[in-house]
């Protein structure tokens, strides 16, 4: 039975490869070359620094490397596992056939190795072997490495499976759509804690620990066993056997544990999730307050708001804030008993730093939220096309809501921060007002990029931009911010902080250092003629932000009128990532 299933998968794979359009082969070739170059550089690096890697240092690198392997497989492999277990299109057929569930499960399990685990395996084994050749390792080193690494990968993959299989039983069917989000958040926190483990267990920074050859992890941790096995094998010592066997046995235990959940977690879970899509949510009795009809521009924004509000996955865009906040509080709590109140400092310092950080976050969110409003239309795109709406109506409707959502969320956070730091009302209000104006521009740019690079993946609704466009958005947001920041600085930062800005720019390099440098220059002008500079600042800020927002929104409107192509990623089993079709808006 297993053979038939595996054979079938193999045939599907072959047919998928054969039916690829020619340009896909080219992209595979490019990917292969990039990957080969990366491996070459890695190997070159190892060859260059091989001499300075002593055994204790190697132990640290190996064990942390194994931790990274587990972490990456959990984080990046989780959506793949979810797809294999619950959203593969062939499950509908397979579950109606007389095939034991465990067979289907194990085929899916084997399938999951092709992907992130395989990539991780190559990225780890090649440098490991290069190092082995460099130090002239004992012959044992190679087979032990070759078997230990898959064992670690099996542990990581099994954890990813366990996450899916356990959570599917806990999360109610009515939350089926949000299942992936909950899992991503929990696994993200889990992996974050995993990576933080060496920091938590030791007082010194990770890089220092590795370089000094001090043990990163306690001996009872499996990653330590794996690293011990490889190090012992490199010198041909029989001591490799115990830790090697321990890691292999552990991998077997993990697989066994996963298999115990197959019936409840896999088949019943799949049934539950399939039922979940047909859920009924009563929103209460028919509204009594009467209809709420609005101007079309407001109506478009409102329907976008409903789509965001009612789908937990849409809020995933704000996840970095959660991690940022979590990391901030958590690292504060574990670093030698530091208290939050210790962070309080003079408002002249906390205010501008917070403003810079918030602007950085705005640049990250606004463009992303605005751009995703285009691809969100997906299969419902015909509605806007059929309604008597101009591109301008649609663009402005999407603009105001995609600007307002991050503004409200971040303003609430800013108020809390402001109260905590004890800012004056003027500081708080002026900061919020300036950011309100500046961020419209980012939303405008984001939406325009959304119109030129929209992509919709039903399995991953957060992924709404083509890769190149997403990268462009990232760059464009910060370039815009950089220019929009000039009048911001002109207006808000008092002349008295000139010295601090100068010191800050001298002390810190990179993005923030450059900004501090600009601040200093502008403040010298402001000191010379404050009124002119302030008026010029207001005008310049309005021109830049409103102007950029208007130009890009009009460009978006024109693009909408001309026709937008939303690349629809097909969520099928045979062409998981490359199969696509387009949906056009106008």
């Amino acid at each position, binding site marked *: 039975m297993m053979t038939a299933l595996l054979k079938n998968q193999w045939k599907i794979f072959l047919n998928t490869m054969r039916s690829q359009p020619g340009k896909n082969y080219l992209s595979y070739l490019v990917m292969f070359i990039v990957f080969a170059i990366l491996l070459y550089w890695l190997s070159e690096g190892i060859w260059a620094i091989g001499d300075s890697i002593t055994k204790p240092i190697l132990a640290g690198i190996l064990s942390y490397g194994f931790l990274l392997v587990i972490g990456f497989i959990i984080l990046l492999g989780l959506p793949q596992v979810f797809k294999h277990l619950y959203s593969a299109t062939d499950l509908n057929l397979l579950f109606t056939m007389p095939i034991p569930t465990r067979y289907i499960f194990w085929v899916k399990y084997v399938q999951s190795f092709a992907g992130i685990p395989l990539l991780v395996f190559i990225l780890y084994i090649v440098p490991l072997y290069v190092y082995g050749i460099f130090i002239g390792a004992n012959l044992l080193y190679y087979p032990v490495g070759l078997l230990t690494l898959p064992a670690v990968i099996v542990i990581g993959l099994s954890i990813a499976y366990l996450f899916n299989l356990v959570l599917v039983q806990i999360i109610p069917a009515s939350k089926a*759509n949000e299942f992936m989000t909950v899992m991503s958040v929990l696994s993200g926190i889990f992996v974050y804690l995993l990576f933080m483990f060496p920091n938590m267990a030791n007082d010194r920074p990770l890089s220092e620990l590795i370089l000094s050859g001090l043990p990163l992890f306690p001996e009872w941790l499996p990653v330590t066993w794996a690293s011990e096995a490889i190090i012992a094998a490199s010198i041909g010592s029989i001591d490799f056997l115990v830790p090697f066997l321990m890691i292999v046995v552990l991998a077997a235990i993990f697989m066994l544990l996963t298999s115990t959940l197959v019936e409840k977690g896999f088949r019943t879970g799949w049934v539950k999730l399939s039922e979940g*899509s*047909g*859920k*009924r*949510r*009563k*929103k*209460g*009795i*028919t*509204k009594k307050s*009467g*209809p*709420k*009809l*609005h*101007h*079309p521009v*407001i*109506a478009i924004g*409102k*329907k976008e708001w*409903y*789509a965001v*509000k*009612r*789908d937990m996955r849409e809020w995933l865009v704000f996840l970095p804030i959660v991690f940022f906040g979590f990391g901030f509080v958590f690292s504060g709590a574990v670093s030698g008993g530091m208290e939050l109140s210790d962070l309080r400092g003079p408002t002249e310092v906390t205010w501008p730093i917070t403003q810079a950080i918030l602007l950085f976050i705005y640049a990250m969110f606004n463009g992303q939220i605005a751009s995703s409003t285009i691809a969100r239309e*997906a*299969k*419902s795109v*015909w*509605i806007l*096309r*059929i*309604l*008597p*709406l*101009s591109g301008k109506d649609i663009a402005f409707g999407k603009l105001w809501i995609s600007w307002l959502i991050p503004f409200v969320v971040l303003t609430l956070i800013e108020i809390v921060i402001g109260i905590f730091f004890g800012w004056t009302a003027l500081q708080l209000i002026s900061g919020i007002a300036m950011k309100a104006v500046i961020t419209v521009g980012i939303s405008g740019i984001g939406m325009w990029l959304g119109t030129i690079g929209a992509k919709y993946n039903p399995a991953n609704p957060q992924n709404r931009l083509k890769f190149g466009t997403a990268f462009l958005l990232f760059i464009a947001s910060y370039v815009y911010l950089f220019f929009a920041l000039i009048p911001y600085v002109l207006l808000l930062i008092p002349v008295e902080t000139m010295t601090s800005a100068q010191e800050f720019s001298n002390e810190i390099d990179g993005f923030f250092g450059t900004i501090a440098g600009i601040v200093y220059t502008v403040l010298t002008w402001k000191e010379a003629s404050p009124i002119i500079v302030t008026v010029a600042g207001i005008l310049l800020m309005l021109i830049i932000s409103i102007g950029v927002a208007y130009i890009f929104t009009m460009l978006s409107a024109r693009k909408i009128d001309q026709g937008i192509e939303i690349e629809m990623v097909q969520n099928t089993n045979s062409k998981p990532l490359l199969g696509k079709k387009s949906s056009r808006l106008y």
Partner: protein
Amino acid sequence: MENKSIKLTNLTKSYRRHVAVKDLSLEVKQGELFGFLGPNGAGKTTTIKMLTGLLEPTGGTAEIKGIDIWKSPIDAKKNIAYVPDQPNLYPKLTGWDYLEFVASVFRIPKDRFQSKADELLQIFSLTDQANDLIESYSHGMKQKIAICGALIHEPDVLFLDEPTVGLDPKSARSLKNLLRELCDNGMTAFLSTHILEIAEQMCDRVGIIFEGDIIALGTMDELRSSGENADQSLEDIFLELTGGEDQQAIISEISDNGDAK
């Protein structure tokens, strides 16, 4: 002069070498319920999509109440509504939210919206589900709310693509009665269907499209009189024109011989 609600002039759609719709010319009068028939892949949906601004024609023009939908799309769209065969609606809106959205776009006064929405939801038995999210609706319910959305602004011209697919018998009957009543009051309906009884019973005029060409056009009486037998049903006429009779003959042949050697 009769008022033309829909006018197609040499409407053509080609995909590279394949011509899906060939030089289609057709007029539909105001208040007419026009049935657009044809086998799978004949070009029905392509034609409707060109008429509703969803698909750009390769050639020819499509006018709604004298307005070219591709030259003045907004003005033309103010007069139309469309119910697709697969109603992909906004999953995260409730049925009521969706109707409010459509009403907002068409700037319908609140009181008129309230009474019209209540009336339509009642007709299609959706009153109790109006505040459920559309993602929870069955295919038939989605179809019904799409029809409600299309009728909420009392369009002059309504396009329906296979509107009865997925509807329960009661809703299908309600739709038929409603369409007839609305057309009697001046609305024009252009509907594509596979269910020939619907076309036969309801439509004022019928057009049969085959491989992108209109091969028959007229009232039921006109179609019958043009055929071999005046007692022919629409199904007979349809099969005769679209080659279904040959397939019927093959099926009979196979049955007669007992096997399909």
